Structure formats: C-alpha cells, structure tokens
C-alpha cells in the first residue's frame, strides 16, 4: 500500500511507469483505486463521481508503478470534459490498463473494452459487480469471456475486496512478460474509430450473448423500491420525504450533538475546554491586549473552539452522514430525472441537480463535478447559481445557529429566499451565457444498500477534508477576528463602514467584521453576528447578506481554474454587490412597516 503523493501533471508521469484504471462511469473504479493504492478516493453510486484523475503508487514485483484512476468513459469518443481526460490518457500510452467491466451490464461495457483492445496496451479485465449481476439473475462465464477478449478476466466485488489479490497476481504475471506499451491507433484516429463503431457494438452484443446466461429472477425489495423512487408517482412524494428526512437529520442531529456534547465542551460561556485554556493562559500571561487576543470574548482560544467545533462541525458531520448515504445508494440520479422538467425550465438539465445538491456540502467539489456536464454553458450557469444561492454546509450550520435564537419562520424564509435567488440567477445567467444546454441523457444506477466499510471510509475522508482544507483559512479568519476585535482596529473600520452597515443594511456597524471574514470562509460571514445583540430583522438581513455574499477564497480559486479569471471575477463581484443591495432592500422595505 502506498502513501498519497503530490498531484503531478499528466505529462510528468512516464507512460511506461503508469497503469490506467479505466472503464464505463460508475463501475467501481475508484473503489479499486482505494484498494490497490491505499489512497482514499471518493466513490459514489452515480455517473461522474470522478471527473478529474487521481494517482498513487502501485508496487508490483520489484517495480513501482503509478496507478491512475481515470474518469469513467463510455467510449473513446468523448462527450464531456471528464471523458476527454480519459481519452487523452489512452492517447499518451501506458504500461498496462485495468479495464473494469460491470457484470450486470456487460454488453455496453464490452464496447469500451473492445475499443481499448485496439490500442495495443496490455489489458487485464475485472468483471466487477458480480453480486449485482447475480441479484438480477445474470451469470457471466468469465472463462469464456477471457477467450473472447484474449486477455485475463478476474471476477471481483471490489467493495468487498473480493478478487483484488487475484488481480494483483495477474498484473504481476502480465508485466513480467515484457509487454511494451505502444498506442498507435488512438491518437488522431477518431475517424477510423467511428467507422468501426458499429462493428464494435455488434461484436460486443454477440460476445455478451455468448457469455451471459440470464435466468428469470423476481425483482427484490431494492429493485422495486428503486423503480418506485424513479417513477413520477410515487417518486416525487418519496423525494420530498427523503429531502425532509435529510433536513431532519442535519438540523435535529446537529442540534442534539451541540446540546448534548459540544456546547458543554466548547461554548465560550463556560465550556470545559474553553475554561481550561482561559485558566491556563491567565496563570502566566499578564492581563492586557495579548491575553484578550488569546482568551478574550473574541480570543483565538475561545472562538476557534466555539465557531468551528460547537457551531459548524455538528451540522457538517450530520449532513455528510445523510448525503453520503444518498450518494452511495444511487438515489441522486433518480432525483435529477424526477425534476428534469423543472430544471429545464430554469435553463439547465436535471443532471445539474446532483451538482447543486453537492454544493450544499461544499461549492468546490460541486463546481469541479460539473465537468460531467456536456456543455460549458451549463457548467457556468450552474456554478453561478451555486455561488449565489447555495450555502455550503458550514455556512448552513452557522445560519441555523443564528436563526435558532429568533423566530421559527426565519430559516424557512431564508430557504425560500435562496430558492428564489437560485431561480433568478439560473434564468439570467442562462440568457447571458452564450451556447446551448444539452437535453438530459443519464443512466439510472441500481439502488444499493451502501457497503458499511466504504460508507464509513467516505465519511472519514470527508470529515478529514473538512478539518484539513478548512483548518488554515478558518484559523486565519479566527486570528484576524481576534486581532481586529481585541486591538480596537474593528472600531475604526466600523466607523468608516457606518453608512453602509447601519444606514443601508440596518446592522450594528461592528457587523462589518462579518463582511471582512466572509471573504476568507463563507461561514465566517455569519459567525461574528452571533456575538452581537441583534434584533430579528437585523438577524434576517445579516443572514440574507451572508447567503448571497462572495464565495470563499477556495471557491474563487476553483472558479478561476475552471472558467478563467474574467468569469470568476464577474461572479464574485456580482455576489458582493447583489448581497449588499438585496440585504439593504429587505431592510429598507421592512423599515416601512415597523
């Protein structure tokens, strides 16, 4: 097993040292990658989980290779940015390919297998998801398939680690035989390939008929549930129920965690850990500005615990518990099909709903995940809508904490407001961005009960990412907040910001700290408001401004990477201007009735 190493560019890895992990989307490639390299790759039960590539060390015999988890592709004629990455890898050549086949849908998978075979790269095939195939009454004669493909075929159930050792043994034998990787047909030969396409499909069909034996099997509970979840009736009712359940898990579970454990430990008002640090520093640091920076009301050792661990962490944890389950079960594509008609009216297709829901966790993977979209216009429209109207889960946690102290209607009102903005932004950006949006064409995967180990591992990765990726910017924001508040600098800035904060937005002028910290992290545009003595209207306006406010630095960076600086700048500046304009408008209108 290897340790993860830094991301290298595709061209930095010698083709003779790399082994490509390829296959159709959603056949379990990332699970193989995790099992073979020890690097935890996020895997889910829907098309487009891997839209970029990961790589890790794979020792075979006395040599170390680089295993590359290539985005899933249906063929070597790409139909999205993600598929284009896969085709480029094949074009660059490799020492060997591990081609993952879905045993429950062999014919379509064989089409890619046959295309890859033309590339003259040694291939070992894995016949994965054999358990699903059995559930559906499909039996595959893998020995016969081996003869048909002229290469080894290993039956596997990757999530249960079944067949992994056999795969490694086969790779060792194969790479020891002096194969040379030489791709001569795949570069600049799309014309030739398209001429052969019909023949490939026909061959795949014939092979599939010869090697597969299908017996009549009664649909199981999950099959029936999966079908019902997909049909308009009762699918839409089930979708509403599932979403309500997810909200219940996040809000209810998050609040319970806070009340039972986290506030007792990390509250600024007598939390055990916070009090420990207060007493510790008070014992050797003299009273004054420095002690205040450490343990004052806005002290680093107070708000870093309260904001990050008591305020945000419980909601992040509960969200990923619910969302990861939905991802692994294969439910998300069903939602995108059910609501495609509504999404089309907003100018995007139903598949974008998956990225929108991902944005509820974090906008960064959501924007990267939109690479699975087939047109650039769709990517820009959905990314803009996510930046404007979809709060990340950290921000949602902070908003929940803010609104909990006021009226019950505040959070639902904010959700409705967010939906309204989502619709408006989608419609306007759909008009402004040139290009087209392709109609929905999506495969609906089998409904599965998530594998316990894979699910637990994924949850662990996500929480590690939360602490690792968010730690530095959150701590930077905490230190900045402590310095601003405890040195008196905040009072000076607040004086200058008074016309905007107090007269237009109706907020206390010290709330300007939320706008400053919000640039670093989205939730930090809410957290400082909790320490202020706000009225109900001020809390609502503050929440609205935060919801619409600038995407955090990480999101800005990913926007630049994916769409260039101009589009990133347009989205970012628009969010700032519109957040302050709309927040002020809400305040001014409300003032007329108060």
């Amino acid at each position, binding site marked *: 097993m290897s340790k993860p190493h830094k991301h290298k560019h595709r061209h930095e890895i010698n083709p003779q040292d790399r082994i490509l992990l390829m296959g159709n989307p959603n056949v379990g490639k990332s699970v193989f990658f995790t099992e073979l390299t020890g690097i935890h790759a996020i895997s889910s039960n829907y098309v487009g989980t891997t839209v970029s590539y990961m790589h890790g060390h794979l020792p075979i015999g006395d040599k170390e290779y680089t295993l590359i988890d290539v985005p899933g592709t249906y*063929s070597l004629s790409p139909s999205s940015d993600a598929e284009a990455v896969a085709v480029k890898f094949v074009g660059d050549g490799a020492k060997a390919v591990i081609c993952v086949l879905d045993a429950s*849908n062999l014919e379509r998978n064989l089409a890619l297998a046959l295309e890859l075979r033309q590339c003259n790269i040694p291939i070992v095939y894995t016949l994965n998801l054999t358990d699903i195939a059995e559930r559906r009454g499909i039996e595959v004669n893998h020995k016969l398939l081996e003869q048909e493909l002229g290469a080894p075929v290993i039956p596997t159930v990757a999530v249960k680690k079944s067949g992994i050792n056999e795969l490694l043994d086969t790779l060792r034998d194969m790479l020891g035989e002096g194969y040379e990787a030489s791709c001569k047909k795949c570069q600049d030969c799309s014309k030739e390939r398209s001429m052969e396409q019909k023949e490939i*499909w026909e061959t795949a069909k014939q092979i599939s008929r010869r090697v597969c034996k299908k017996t009549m099997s009664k649909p199981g509970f999950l099959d029936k549930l999966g079908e019902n979840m997909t049909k308009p009736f009762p699918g839409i009712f089930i979708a509403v129920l599932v979403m309500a359940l997810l909200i219940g898990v996040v809000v209810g579970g998050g609040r319970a965690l806070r009340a039972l454990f986290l506030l007792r430990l990390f509250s600024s008002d007598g939390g055990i850990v916070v009090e420990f640090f207060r007493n510790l520093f008070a014992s050797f640091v003299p009273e004054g500005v420095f002690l205040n920076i450490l343990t004052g009301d806005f002290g680093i050792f107070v708000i870093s615990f309260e904001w990050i661990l008591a305020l945000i962490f419980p909601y992040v944890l509960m969200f990923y518990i619910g969302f990861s389950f939905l991802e692994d079960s294969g439910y998300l594509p069903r939602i995108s099909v059910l609501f495609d008609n509504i999404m089309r009216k907003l100018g995007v297709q139903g598949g974008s709903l998956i990225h929108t829901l991902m944005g509820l966790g974090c906008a960064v993977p959501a924007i990267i995940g939109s690479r699975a979209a087939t047109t650039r216009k769709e990517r820009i429209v959905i990314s803009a809508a996510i930046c404007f109207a979809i709060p990340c889960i950290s921000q949602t946690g902070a908003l929940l904490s803010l609104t909990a102290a006021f009226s019950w209607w505040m959070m639902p009102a904010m959700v409705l407001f967010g939906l309204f903005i989502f619709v408006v932004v989608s419609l306007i950006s759909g008009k402004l961005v040139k290009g087209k949006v392709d109609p929905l064409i999506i*495969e609906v995967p089998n409904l599965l009960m998530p594998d316990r180990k894979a699910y637990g591992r994924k949850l662990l990765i996500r929480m590690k990412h939360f602490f690792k990726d968010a730690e530095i910017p959150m701590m930077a924001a905490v230190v900045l907040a402590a310095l601003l508040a405890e040195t008196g600098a905040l009072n000076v800035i607040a004086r200058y910001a008074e016309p905007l904060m107090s007269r237009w937005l109706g907020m206390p002028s010290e709330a300007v700290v939320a706008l400053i910290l919000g640039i670093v992290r989205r939730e930090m545009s809410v957290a400082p408001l909790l320490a202020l003595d706000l009225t109900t209207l001020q809390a609502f306006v503050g929440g609205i401004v935060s919801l619409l406010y600038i995407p955090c630095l990480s999101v800005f960076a990913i926007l630049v990477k994916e769409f260039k600086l101009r589009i990133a700048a347009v989205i970012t500046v628009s969010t700032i201007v519109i957040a302050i304009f709309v927040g002020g408008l809400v305040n001014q209108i409300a003032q007329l009735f108060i």
Partner: protein
Amino acid sequence: MASEISLHKAKTNNIYNVVAVPEMELLKSLGIRAGATLRVICHYPLGGPTLVCVEDCATVAVGKDVASLVSLAPETGDTDSVEDVA
C-alpha cells in the same frame, strides 16, 4: 415504415426496436442505437424525460428533445432495416 413512433410518444410498458437515433455519441454509448431493443418504463409530466430499459439491462432517462428524435418500431424480432439519422 408505417408503424414508426417517436420515443417521446411511445406507450409505457411496450417493447420497441430502435429504428433511428440522432447523431449523439452519449446516446449510442448508452445502448440506444439503431437495432437495440428497449422497454418504455414511463414518461415524466411537464416536458420531462422518458425512462427506458435498454436491452433488458440498463435504465436510461432521455430528455424530451432527444426522445422526440428517436424513432421506434414495435418489437418484432427483425432488426435488419435500421439506419442512423444524421
């Protein structure tokens, strides 16, 4: 062929042979290509997609605009006269 019908208007739960499909790589890669057999599972209201089971194997949703361009004929077992629409 007189009995040809578009996928968008095909009857639910009926089995059809695909006669012609628009020139879309993704559609063909998912198995919806001339000569394939599919069962229509359901149509979604308000201009939503059509859900089909391809070759008794994969479940695929096809947006209305594309479904309107996919020509089908009732399943007969004869799949010789098939063509691609440019």
